[in-house]
C-alpha cells in the first residue's frame, strides 16, 4: 500500500474558534479539501482573503481518481504557484492507439503545438495534485497568508442568511459553530452541502459502471493511450490503458449498467479480467480497484445567495475527455477574482451571477461533449451501434473517418461567448482570442506570455499605444506593452493579431479576454472595464 494514502496531510488540530464565546465570522469558508477546494483556498489566500477549508477527512483521496490534467489546468496551477511540480512529476504522452474487436485500426500522434509553456495534458494521480496543492497552501501560510485547513471538521448543518452563513461543525472533540460571509461548496458529486440545503441535481442522466484499476507493473508498454472498442477480453464494452507516474497503469474496463458491484470488485474476479487484457505472463500488483458509476447532470444554479457550488458538487460528467477535475479548476479560476472584488466592495454582488452563467455554459459544453463520447463508446440503440461500427471499420482504411471516432474529446477551456461581462468584438482578429476566450500562451523570448497576465486586469497592447495605468471606479488596470517583434516565432502575432497590424486587449484576472480593439480608445475601454466587473 502506497504510504501517501496513510499519512494525514492536514491532521485535526484544535482551533481557537472552538473555544470562542460567540461564533467567529470568517470571510470565506470552503467545504472540501479536494483539488477544487484547495485551488479555491489558495487562489483567495493569494489575494489576501481570509479563508478556512473544512474537510471531514485528513488525507489525500484514495486511489488515482482524476488522472488527466489539461493545459488550461496547468496554466491555472502556474498562477496558483503549483504548476511546476505537476509537470515535473506527470507523464506526457503523444501517441494514441485505437483498437476495434481484435485489431488495431489506427494510431495517432498528437505532436504538441509549439509555443506553449505547458504541454497539452499530463497524466498524474489526483493524490499527487492534492499533495502539491497542500504543499503550496503550507508555503502560503508560512508567508503569513490568511489560510487554514481544518482536518476532521465535518459540517453537520448549514444555516443561510442574507449576509452570512452559519455552520455547525463536528470534530473529534465535539461540535462548534462558525460563520462566514461566503461559503464555497467543493464537497464532491454527493455534496452534503447540496443535500443539507435541499437543492436539485437534475439533468440528462446517463448511467454506466466502470471497473477502474491501478496496476503496478514493470511492463514495457509505451507511454501511449490505448483505447479498445468491443475487445475480445471485454465483449460489447470498452477498455482503456493509460500510464501514470511510478510505473502505475490506469485500466478502465466498462462493465455496463446491470452488474453486481461488490462481486466485480473482488480480486478473484478482477485479476482474470486484467490477465485477459494484459497477457497471462505479465506480472502486476493491484494498487487500487474501484467501481465508478457516473451520470451527466448539473445543478440548475451554481449560486444560491451566499453559497457557491464548484466542481463535482455543481456538475458531473462521464470520465471521457477528462472534463471533471479540469472543469472544477476552471470554476474556481472564474469565481475567486469576482469574489475578491465583491468582498472589497469594488464590484456589485451581482458580479457573482456571472459566475453562475459562465460556468453553467462551461458545464453544459462538458456535458454535451462527454454525452456524445458516451454514446459513441456505448451505443444505446442498434442503429447507433451499426453507425459506430461503420465509423470504426472505415477509420481503419480512410483518414476521413478518424475525426468521427470519439473515445473522449479532451477538456479545453470554455469560451464565454455571449457573457454579460464581454464587450463587442472590435478587432478583425483570430477567433481563438475573441472576447470570452481563455488567453492562449505565446513565447516571448526567454519566457512566456501568461505569467504576465495573472491575478489583475491587464491592458495588453501589441504594437499599439495605451496608458500605463487606468483606474476606473476602483478597478486598476495595468498595461503590458508588447510588439510582434518580441516573439520571433510569430505565435504572438498568429494568436492575437491575425490579419490585424495592432491590437489592444482588456484581460480579466482569470486570463479571459473581456474586450479587444485595434487601438486604444479611452471611453470604450473604460466602459469595457465597467462591463467586466458587473457595472453595466
Amino acid at each position: 500500500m502506497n504510504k501517501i494514502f496513510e499519512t494525514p496531510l492536514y491532521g485535526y488540530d484544535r482551533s481557537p474558534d472552538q473555544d470562542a464565546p460567540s461564533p467567529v465570522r470568517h470571510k470565506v469558508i470552503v467545504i472540501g479539501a479536494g483539488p477544487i477546494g484547495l485551488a479555491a483556498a489558495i487562489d483567495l489566500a493569494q489575494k489576501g482573503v481570509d479563508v478556512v477549508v473544512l474537510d471531514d477527512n485528513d488525507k489525500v483521496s484514495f486511489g488515482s481518481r482524476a488522472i488527466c490534467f489539461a493545459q488550461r489546468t496547468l496554466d491555472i496551477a502556474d498562477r496558483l504557484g503549483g504548476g511546476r511540480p505537476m509537470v515535473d512529476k506527470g507523464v506526457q504522452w503523444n501517441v494514441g492507439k485505437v483498437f476495434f474487436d481484435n485489431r488495431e485500426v489506427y494510431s495517432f500522434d498528437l505532436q504538441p503545438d509549439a509555443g506553449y509553456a505547458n504541454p497539452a495534458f499530463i497524466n498524474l494521480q489526483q493524490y499527487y495534485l492534492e499533495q502539491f496543492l497542500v504543499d503550496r497552501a503550507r508555503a502560503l501560510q508560512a508567508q503569513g497568508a490568511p489560510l487554514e485547513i481544518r482536518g476532521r471538521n465535518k459540517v453537520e448543518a448549514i444555516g443561510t442568511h442574507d449576509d452570512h452563513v452559519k455552520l455547525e461543525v463536528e470534530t473529534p472533540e465535539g461540535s462548534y459553530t462558525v460563520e462566514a460571509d461566503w461559503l464555497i461548496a467543493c464537497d464532491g458529486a454527493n455534496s452534503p452541502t447540496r443535500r443539507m440545503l435541499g437543492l436539485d441535481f437534475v439533468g440528462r442522466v446517463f448511467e454506466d459502471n466502470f471497473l477502474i484499476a491501478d496496476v503496478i507493473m514493470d511492463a514495457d508498454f509505451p507511454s501511449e493511450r490505448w483505447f479498445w472498442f468491443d475487445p475480445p477480453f471485454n465483449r460489447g464494452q470498452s477498455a482503456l490503458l493509460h500510464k501514470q507516474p511510478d510505473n502505475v497503469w490506469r485500466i478502465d474496463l466498462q462493465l455496463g449498467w446491470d452488474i453486481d458491484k461488490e462481486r466485480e470488485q473482488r480480486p478473484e474476479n478482477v485479476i482474470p479480467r486484467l490477465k485477459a487484457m494484459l497477457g497471462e505472463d505479465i506480472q502486476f500488483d493491484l494498487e487500487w480497484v474501484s467501481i465508478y458509476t457516473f451520470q451527466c447532470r448539473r445543478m440548475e444554479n451554481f449560486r444560491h445567495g451566499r453559497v457557491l457550488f464548484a466542481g463535482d458538487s455543481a456538475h458531473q460528467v462521464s470520465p471521457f475527455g477528462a472534463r471533471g477535475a479540469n472543469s472544477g479548476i476552471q470554476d474556481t479560476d472564474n469565481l475567486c477574482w469576482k469574489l475578491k472584488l465583491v468582498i472589497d466592495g469594488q464590484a456589485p454582488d451581482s458580479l457573482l451571477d456571472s459566475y453562475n452563467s459562465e460556468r453553467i455554459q462551461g458545464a453544459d459544453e462538458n456535458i454535451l461533449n462527454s454525452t456524445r463520447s458516451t454514446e459513441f463508446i456505448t451505443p444505446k440503440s442498434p442503429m447507433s451501434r451499426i453507425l459506430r461500427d461503420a465509423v470504426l471499420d472505415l477509420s481503419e482504411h480512410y483518414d476521413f473517418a478518424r475525426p468521427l471516432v470519439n473515445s473522449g474529446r479532451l477538456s479545453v477551456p470554455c469560451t464565454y461567448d455571449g457573457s454579460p461581462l464581454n464587450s463587442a468584438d472590435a478587432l478583425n482578429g483570430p477567433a481563438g482570442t475573441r472576447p470570452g476566450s481563455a488567453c492562449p500562451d505565446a513565447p516571448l523570448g526567454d519566457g512566456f506570455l501568461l505569467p504576465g497576465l495573472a491575478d489583475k486586469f491587464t491592458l495588453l497592447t501589441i504594437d499599439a499605444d495605451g496608458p500605463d495605468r487606468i483606474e476606473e471606479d476602483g478597478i486598476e488596470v495595468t498595461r503590458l506593452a508588447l510588439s510582434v517583434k518580441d516573439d520571433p516565432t510569430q505565435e504572438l502575432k498568429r494568436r492575437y493579431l491575425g490579419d490585424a497590424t495592432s491590437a489592444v486587449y482588456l484581460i480579466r484576472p482569470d486570463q479571459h479576454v473581456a474586450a479587444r480593439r485595434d487601438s486604444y480608445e479611452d471611453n470604450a475601454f473604460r466602459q469595457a472595464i465597467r462591463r467586466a466587473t458587473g457595472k453595466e
Partner: protein
Amino acid sequence: MADLILSPNLENADDFYADLLAAHDGLEKAGSDALNARLVLVLANHIGDNAVLAQAIKAAALTGE
C-alpha cells in the same frame, strides 16, 4: 475526373454525427434502414458525378485496397 475525398472534410464531425443519431431516435430497425437508404440517395444526388459515386461505392465496400 474528380476524385472522391477521403481525407477529413467535415466542418464539424461531432455535430454531424449527433444530428445523424438524432434523426434515428425512436425509429425501429426498418424505419432506420429506410432513413439510411433515403439519406444515401439524397447525398448521391448532391454529388451528382457518377465517377465519384462509383469510387464512393467501392470505398464503402472496403474492397478497394
